[in-house]
């Protein structure tokens, strides 16, 4: 190793190193530099008599088709990842996030009422549905546009997609359990207001007290 060591202070005393050696030098300089290096700068660093341009030309050819390329940036040179390998510089990070309450409610309404217009969704939810919420569901491919409603303004309708059914393990949206089933299954976290249980029990009885009009 020591025999190939060049002391820049002695540069004038020796002939220029062989071209292969110069090529190695250009390679090391370009590799270690944080910025593209101009030919002039390379020449300044290399032993006297070196031909940076020629060494660079050889080096450039050597890296043709390799995983990194030698590219020109302005009047300087730098190693860069081969363009077709750019994907290696990316790391896919999948972040799992819970669907927002607004999104899941909107989704639920679409699933239960499809095809349903935005106005209808808002009516059922009791609040405006933000553009972003529907966009998100569209983007996730859980809902898509259905046929336009044949009413004034011909509003678009939304329906759920096979992707949605797939995700939730449903054969069709009709498989979604009804409210009564939910209640029977105890899935409605029903914190009834005082007397609310009577709705279906006592209330029925009570309404029978009076003849239906």
């Amino acid at each position: 190793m020591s025999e190939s060591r060049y002391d820049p202070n002695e540069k004038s005393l020796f002939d220029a190193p062989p071209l292969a050696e110069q090529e190695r030098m250009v390679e090391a300089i370009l590799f270690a530099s944080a910025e593209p290096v101009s030919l002039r700068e390379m020449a300044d660093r290399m032993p006297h008599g070196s031909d940076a341009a020629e060494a660079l030309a050889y080096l450039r050819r050597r890296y043709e088709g390799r995983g990194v390329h030698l590219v020109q940036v302005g009047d300087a040179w730098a190693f860069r990842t081969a363009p077709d390998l750019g994907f290696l510089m990316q790391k896919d990070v999948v972040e799992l996030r819970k669907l927002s309450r607004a999104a899941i409610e909107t989704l639920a309404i679409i699933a239960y009422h499809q095809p349903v217009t935005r106005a209808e969704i808002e009516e059922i939810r009791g609040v405006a549905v933000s553009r972003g919420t529907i966009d998100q569901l569209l983007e996730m491919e859980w809902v898509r546009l259905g046929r336009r409603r044949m009413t004034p303004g011909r509003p678009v309708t939304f329906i759920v997609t096979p992707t949605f059914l797939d995700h939730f393990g449903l054969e069709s949206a009709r498989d979604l359990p009804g409210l009564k089933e939910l209640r029977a299954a105890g899935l409605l976290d029903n914190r009834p207001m005082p007397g609310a249980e009577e709705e279906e029990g006592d209330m029925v009885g009570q309404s029978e007290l009076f003849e239906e009009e």
Partner: protein
Amino acid sequence: MAEETSLFESTSVSERLAAEALIVDVDGFEGPLDLLLTLSRMQKVDLRRISVLALAEQYLRFVEEAKALRIELAADYLVMAAWLAFLKSRLLLPPEPGEEGPSAEDLAAHLAFQLERLAAMREAAASLMARDQLGRNFFARGLEEQVEKVRSVRYSASLLELIQAYARIRTRDEFRPYAFDRKDIFTMEEALERIRGMIGFAGDWTALTHYMPEGWGREPARRRSATAATFAASLELAKQGQIEIRQSETFAPITIRARTTPRVPAPRES
């Protein structure tokens, strides 16, 4: 380190100079072991063949000289001096029969080992630092490319969450905090007025449901309110003696009719 040792490896003049330098520079030593190592090099022999006895004498002489020069020595130098004095006497005297503990030779050998080990570590440190080093002799990639993190968000929701969300919307009214909603309340006063206004025209027994206000039967909440008000108003009117109430059996329709001869005068007429 190399410079230090070379000081002691030359003539006796420089040896004496070095001995003085030792005393002056006592703070420059990293403790007694360091000093002992430096002194041991004065013997100009392989550390393995060092005379611990001679070394002990050297050290003790050094400590004496330092004391003569009124150089304050740190406690550890004195502790080492005491130990070496002990070791020296043990090395010089024949072992007492039946004596416990390690032999003087073992202790001397251990001290020699410690010195050799310290010297070896110093050499190792020197050769380590003499190695090619990153950022000095060899270099890492200067133009680092950041590995870009492509963040893709995957949203998840379970069927249960979906169903519960729907149920939450559809039953929202049930969970609404209690608020007095005038719009859907049919007051007893209104019911009283309505029955009073209608009862005169009703004639015979008429179902109480006929007195329900119009447009209140559809929505459960409104129907409930109107029912309750109407029923309560009928009881009130019966109590006032203005009407009679009849129910043929449990859960049968309730019917009322105007009382022809009031037992108590109606408030309005009084």
